[in-house]
């Protein structure tokens, strides 16, 4: 046996080309219209199209179609049998058409054809039985073993049965037991019983006697026998194979099962394909020996498997590999005995036979043209690009540009706030909804220029603010898609909010599976968070900014226009924070503009109020200035010693509210500790819980369990109690984290505008990142400690070079895995101190880059530094400034020390000399290498020495660090 073809003998397309056919739509039967009659093929669609075919010869002919008519209702099934008693010819069968609410019995009448028009048939309505419940199927047979006539029963969707005996007698009954999904019911004539597939996947056998008497006696009755089938069934058929035995053939969803009519399993055949429909029949006559039970099963991939009992004897494939047929029958045609009649889901009717025509799989030609060099080169280029695109990430700018081209985002937030938020729809918690906070509306437009496999848009809002849509995912986006999303931003938690920035991040995977990310920002209107109130005269924290840009008018209108209705030239503005809106305290911030100078003073008692105001101030200034187009803040390689360029637009007075910020850190840290303790407690209880559970499991049945149960209950209660406590602490922690966010952001915004070296500003800015994150293993303080520590020991913020090396050694010794909060706090405080001190050091008329680089020089260059006391740090600073003028480096040289490379190198040389004389640690580390190489290394290593932070503001690599310290490796 091999895989053969199902050879097509005759085929036709039924009237309705839609997917309207299923297993009950096909019927092959005779009606007893003529002598030597062959089978008619009747097809009825679920749209009501009824067609009768009578194939005459190979190949479809127009005269093969005998009737085509449209029924008023969908045809659910077609049946043929002796449904009427008063018919003379005993070979005559009637056609039963099952409609949803009726069964119509037709007599089929032949009309002889004239000339070449061919014959026709006509349907004559014999009887119509209506019923109320919608039908599912029909079961027919010589119920009660009557001869010469057939009764039938309609199986309804709800599982009831309506029996129709002839002469209009009908009655309803139900099978006992629970209602199942609609499934076919079969009748076995030999034992006069019905087979039903029950809800619990059993096959049940009921005798007709029981069924028909059940209503009469109102007695409940039991199935004659029940057998577990163990799976859902596709179809079921009863075939009489021997005089004394019928087989029930069941096509299950995974197995092909056969039982005899006494409920004994004949076989269960596990199918390794998904069966779709089947037909079982007996070749020969059952009362003669040698009758063979043959079953044809069609698989979902259009293969026909023919079994004799449970053994496969033939397999064939439909040649065009079209969709598998939904119904199969075997019938005798004129000129073809035992043809296989199949019906597809779209009404493709086909009569085929099993020819020995081997199925040859035709490999579709790949149509490869002769290889042209240009084309091959192009393909190769394409593949190279693919490699480059996915594996090579050297040119990030180009990649980002490309990504931005593929997905164009435009994201904006309206500047005015709205009050009409649907708090119910957006699921705002009640305590927030009560306050009726203003909300803002945003708009996101995106256009996709290339096919993408996946696209995900994520909106990142500051803690406490929520967006009406946080994540949107798309799959298989085609190029050219564009969409607009309307968004609502609203406050969902009563927390201090540290920023108005909303980020939208679009991450996508293109059709080749390469991921890219792009992002855009927009700012929420301040009106969402503040409302105007009376300005305050005095406050605890006072900050001063001076606007140095010529393009920005130092007026309140410039920055807080939305709060100044009518009083456009006011000089003082009081804003009250809406958000936590606690009753006890009203958090007010006041902004005052100096009348004559370009200074702006911002004051408040609360650290939390500042962040957003400063953000607005700094951002607006920078934005206005750069739109005036004078100075570009492009990210070119920074030379050391370049002064913070923002200072040319606005400058903050060097003051940091260290104490309040540190207080926030303290509170946060304490809560962290509490959480940790609480978690440990939970862990213990949890371990106990598990042990107890295990004990319970291991206990024998008869042992008393009371003590253990009590223990478990106490333990459980405790667990819940502690868990609730943890939840509370977590909530506190969240609030404190937000406060800390505000505090850190405040520091960051001040440092941004301080008169410092730009690299210092950037480094400190990147260390003080917001929002603050806590991890389960690592709190924010712990994660910050190394960064702060590093700032403490290296770089321009160190006290001096010489002490720094020792500091490093100390640090590596002690700080490796132990975190000490006191130490962290001390470093944090000194860091702020130093920043303030550096920034407040007198500047030689800040203005040109040349001068400022000179001014910063002494800090950068590690001069020998006596262990200065904390108290006279300022004095130290002055001394350092004075050092600049030491005769070691001639003053003349200093003055013409422009930003040229040569000058910087000169400077380095002077540095090294200085260091070599300074301390002897080099010898300790460098003994192995010869002096010649040592100078060589020195030369090379001194170059990156200044780059203790590379231009992307990442932390230095160890190599850079070590070279910075002048240690050979």
């Amino acid at each position, binding site marked *: 046996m091999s895989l053969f073809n199902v050879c097509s003998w005759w085929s036709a397309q039924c009237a309705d080309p839609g997917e309207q056919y299923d297993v009950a739509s096909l019927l092959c039967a005779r009606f007893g219209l003529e002598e030597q009659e062959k089978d008619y093929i009747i097809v009825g669609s*679920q749209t009501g199209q009824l067609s009768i075919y009578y194939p005459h010869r190979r190949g479809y002919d127009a005269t093969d179609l005998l009737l085509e008519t449209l029924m008023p209702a969908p045809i659910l099934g077609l049946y043929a049998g002796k449904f009427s008693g008063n018919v003379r010819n005993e070979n005559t069968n009637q056609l039963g058409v099952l409609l949803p609410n009726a069964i119509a019995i037709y007599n089929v009448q032949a009309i002889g054809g004239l000339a070449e028009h061919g014959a026709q048939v006509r349907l004559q309505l014999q009887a119509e039985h209506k019923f*109320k419940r919608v039908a599912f199927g029909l079961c027919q047979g010589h119920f009660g073993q009557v001869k010469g006539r057939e009764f039938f029963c309609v199986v309804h969707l709800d599982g009831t049965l309506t029996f129709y005996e002839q002469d209009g007698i*009908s*009655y309803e009954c139900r099978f006992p037991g629970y209602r199942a999904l609609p499934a076919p019911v079969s009748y076995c004539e030999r034992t006069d019983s019905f087979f039903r597939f029950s809800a619990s996947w059993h096959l049940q056998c009921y005798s007709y006697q029981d069924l028909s008497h059940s209503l009469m006696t109102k007695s409940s009755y039991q199935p004659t026998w029940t057998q*577990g089938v163990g799976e859902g069934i596709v179809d079921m058929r009863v075939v009489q194979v021997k005089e004394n035995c019928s087989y029930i053939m069941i096509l299950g969803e995974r197995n092909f099962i056969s039982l005899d009519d006494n409920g004994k399993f004949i076989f269960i055949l596990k199918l*390794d394909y998904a069966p779709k429909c089947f037909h079982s029949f007996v070749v020969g006559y059952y009362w003669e020996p040698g009758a063979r039970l043959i079953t044809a099963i069609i698989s979902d*991939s259009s*293969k026909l498997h023919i079994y004799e009992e449970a053994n496969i004897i033939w397999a064939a494939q439909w040649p065009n590999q079209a969709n598998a047929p939904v119904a199969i029958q075997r019938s005798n045609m004129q000129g073809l005995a035992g043809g296989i009649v199949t019906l597809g889901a779209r009404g493709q009717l086909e009569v085929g036979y099993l020819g020995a025509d081997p199925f040859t799989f035709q490999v579709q030609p790949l149509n490869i043209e002769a290889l042209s060099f240009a084309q091959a080169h192009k393909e190769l280029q394409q593949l190279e690009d693919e490699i480059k695109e996915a*594996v090579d990430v050297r040119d990030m700018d180009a990649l980002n540009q490309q990504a931005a081209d593929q997905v164009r985002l435009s994201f904006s937030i309206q500047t005015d706030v709205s009050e009409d938020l649907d708090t119910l729809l957006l699921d705002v918690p009640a305590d927030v909804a009560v306050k009726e906070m203003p909300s803002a509306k945003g708009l996101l437009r995106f256009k996709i220029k290339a096919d993408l496999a996946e696209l995900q848009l994520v909106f990142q809002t500051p803690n406490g603010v929520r967006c009406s849509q946080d994540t949107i995912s798309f799959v298989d986006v085609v190029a050219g898609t564009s969409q607009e999303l309307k968004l609502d931003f609203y406050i969902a938690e009563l927390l201090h909010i540290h920023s108005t920035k909303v980020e939208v991040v679009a991450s996508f995977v293109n059709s080749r*599976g390469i991921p890219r990310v792009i992002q855009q920002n927009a700012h929420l209107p301040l009106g969402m968070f503040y409302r105007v109130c009376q300005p305050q005269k005095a406050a605890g924290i006072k900050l001063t900014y001076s606007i140095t840009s010529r393009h920005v008018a130092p007026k309140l209108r410039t920055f807080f226009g939305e709060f100044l209705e009518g009083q456009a030239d006011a000089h003082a503005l009081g804003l009250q924070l809406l958000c936590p809106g606690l009753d006890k305290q009203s958090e007010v911030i006041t902004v005052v503009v100096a009348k004559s100078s370009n200074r702006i003073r911002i004051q408040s008692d609360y650290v939390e109020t500042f962040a957003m105001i400063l953000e607005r101030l700094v951002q607006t200034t920078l934005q206005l200035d750069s739109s005036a187009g004078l100075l570009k803040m492009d990210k070119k390689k920074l030379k050391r010693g370049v002064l913070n360029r923002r200072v040319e637009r606005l400058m903050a007075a060097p003051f940091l509210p260290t104490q309040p910020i540190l207080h926030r850190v303290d509170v946060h840290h304490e809560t962290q500790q509490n959480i940790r303790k609480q978690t440990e407690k939970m862990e213990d209880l949890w371990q106990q819980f598990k042990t107890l559970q295990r004990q319970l499991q291991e206990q024998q049945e008869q042992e008393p369990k009371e003590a253990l149960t009590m223990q478990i209950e106490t333990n459980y209660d405790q667990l819940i109690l502690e868990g609730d406590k943890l939840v509370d602490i977590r909530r506190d922690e969240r609030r404190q984290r937000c406060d800390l966010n505000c505090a850190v952001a405040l520091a960051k915004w001040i440092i941004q505008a301080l008169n410092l070296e730009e690299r210092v500003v950037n480094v400190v800015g990147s260390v003080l990142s917001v929002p603050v994150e806590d991890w389960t293993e690592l709190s924010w303080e712990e994660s910050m400690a190394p960064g702060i520590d590093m700032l403490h020991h290296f770089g321009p913020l160190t006290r001096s070079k010489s002490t720094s090396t020792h500091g490093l050694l100390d640090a590596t010794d002690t700080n490796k895995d132990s975190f000490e909060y006191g130490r962290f706090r001390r470093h944090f405080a000194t860091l702020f101190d130093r920043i303030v001190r550096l920034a407040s050091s007198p500047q030689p008329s800040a203005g040109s880059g040349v001068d400022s680089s000179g001014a910063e020089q002494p800090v950068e260059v590690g001069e020998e530094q006596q262990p200065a006391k904390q108290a006279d740090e300022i004095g130290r600073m002055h001394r350092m400034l004075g050092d600049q003028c030491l005769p070691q480096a001639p003053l003349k040289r200093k003055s013409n020390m422009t930003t040229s490379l040569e000058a910087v190198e000169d400077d380095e040389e002077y540095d090294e000399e200085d260091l070599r004389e300074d301390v002897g640690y080099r010898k300790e580390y460098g003994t192995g290498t010869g002096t010649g190489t040592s100078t060589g290394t020195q030369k090379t290593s001194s170059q990156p020495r200044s780059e203790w932070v590379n231009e992307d503001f990442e932390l230095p690599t160890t190599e850079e660090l070590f070279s910075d310290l002048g240690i050979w490796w």
Partner: protein
Amino acid sequence: MATLELDYFRAVSLYRRRSYEQCAELCNALLQAGHDNNVQMFATKEGEQEEHQQQQQQAELEGNSNSNSRRFGSNLQRIGPRHAQQQQKAAAVASIMMPTWLMEGVWQLKMRALTQRVYLDDLEVDDAGEEEAHEEVEFERIATAARPGSSIKTAFQPRPSTSQRQTQRSSRGAGLAHSSDGRLNSSRPGSAAVARPGTSLSRPGSSLGARPASRCGTASRVRATSAAAFNVGDATSKLYQASRLNPTIYAERETLVKALFQFLFYHEADVQKAHSLCRAVLEVQRQRPSASGSEATRIDWWWQQQMGRCLLALHYPRRAEPCLQQSLAAFPHPDTYLLLSRLYQRLKQPERALVLIGEVVDLRPFDVTYRLEQARIHQAMQRQEDSLQLYRLVSRLQPINVEALASIAVGYFYDNNPEMALMYYRRILSLGAHSAELYCNIALCCLYGGQIDLVLPCFQRSLAMSTQPEQKADVWYNLSFVAVTSGDFNLARRCLQLCLTSDARNGAALNNLAVLAAQGGDVLAAKSYLNAAKDMMPDAEEVTSNLQFMDLHYKL
């Protein structure tokens, strides 16, 4: 009402012809309609409901029979066609309300359709990760209980870890297809190529025999992701939240519980939940008073089998054994035999599995299922000869069995007989089961058989047919062998890079790239490639020995 019922019929019809997705859509519409009308589902107990139904029917009957009594005399049982008036009234009432039974039927139908849509025979798929920690499983169970409402699917799906991917059985040969049917194949996107015949090269960087069959771990995960993806945007999906399900309540509902079990097991891939459902049902069955008395008759073999299935999937083979044995004693279902055989193999007692399968083979000597299982056991025991013998027998019994043919082909291939392997592969091809993996294998056979002209076209075809990135990676990987054979190391490097483009976690490719890099003199790159390969495949012999070799011979 009538249209609702007709829609229900259509849904059943779609289910019957295996259009599961359409069926589910239609069910969604129906469920939505029912939901809008506040139809209560499962509000009453099953028994009561049936009673209620019967009473109603009885009342109906009596009402009818009164009016019909004139026609039929005293024969109360027979009712004639209803009166038109009554019918209209009933229809008017019914059109407003969707009956509960219909809603429940639709619910169940959708559940069945969803299950069938993603059904993969768990006996046909080897799930990796046999050494999963028990502690982890236990933790998951408790976690599930502690967080009702959250979706288990998203929250507690264990992430595929590299270690899980390792323990795949070596060349099963017919990872290609265990069935002779196309459908199962297509629904199993992760199944890998027929064992990669690359090891015949005896260089340090030759390919590794065993590769995980599916990239993302287990078949159940493939199922679950497919199922989850289908649920996206389905408004009625909350009617199917497995996490909210209370097994003890459903255990009494015989109508649903089997379908529900399969839904949990196959669709939700939530074995824990399925297992607890199983336990609850068995408990109910045990407590049920029974006339016959003996426990065996009360307990359904089906549930015993499912219990065994769950326990096996949960890696409790010892506890699964008695369940399956009892089930087998009650009813000899083929699945039970296969499950038991799996179980013994997992317990490292393949001999016992062979004895068991041998028993059933004696009963049903021509059933291919058992013969195949025998062959697989032999293969797992490294008895290639016996297993090939059995595969040959299978291919005689069922000449269209692709698994048998592919296994024989692989046997020939590794026996340095690529020409014979090619014949078998061509036979599979002629059966219509053409796939990227098959073309890839044909190409390799051609390569080693010396039919060079066919190699590249076959690879081209394979590339054109491969849809999954893993498939592409496999093809590029194998193409690199063509390049190596022809001595073009640069091309080989590119092929391997393309392989990594598709699947960056391909350890074999990383290893081979390392060898190529070392050959090209770039020792540092080689080292880093090897380290990457080591991360991907910590147990691979080749990688370890290559690393050792590097440590010995290069000073880094």
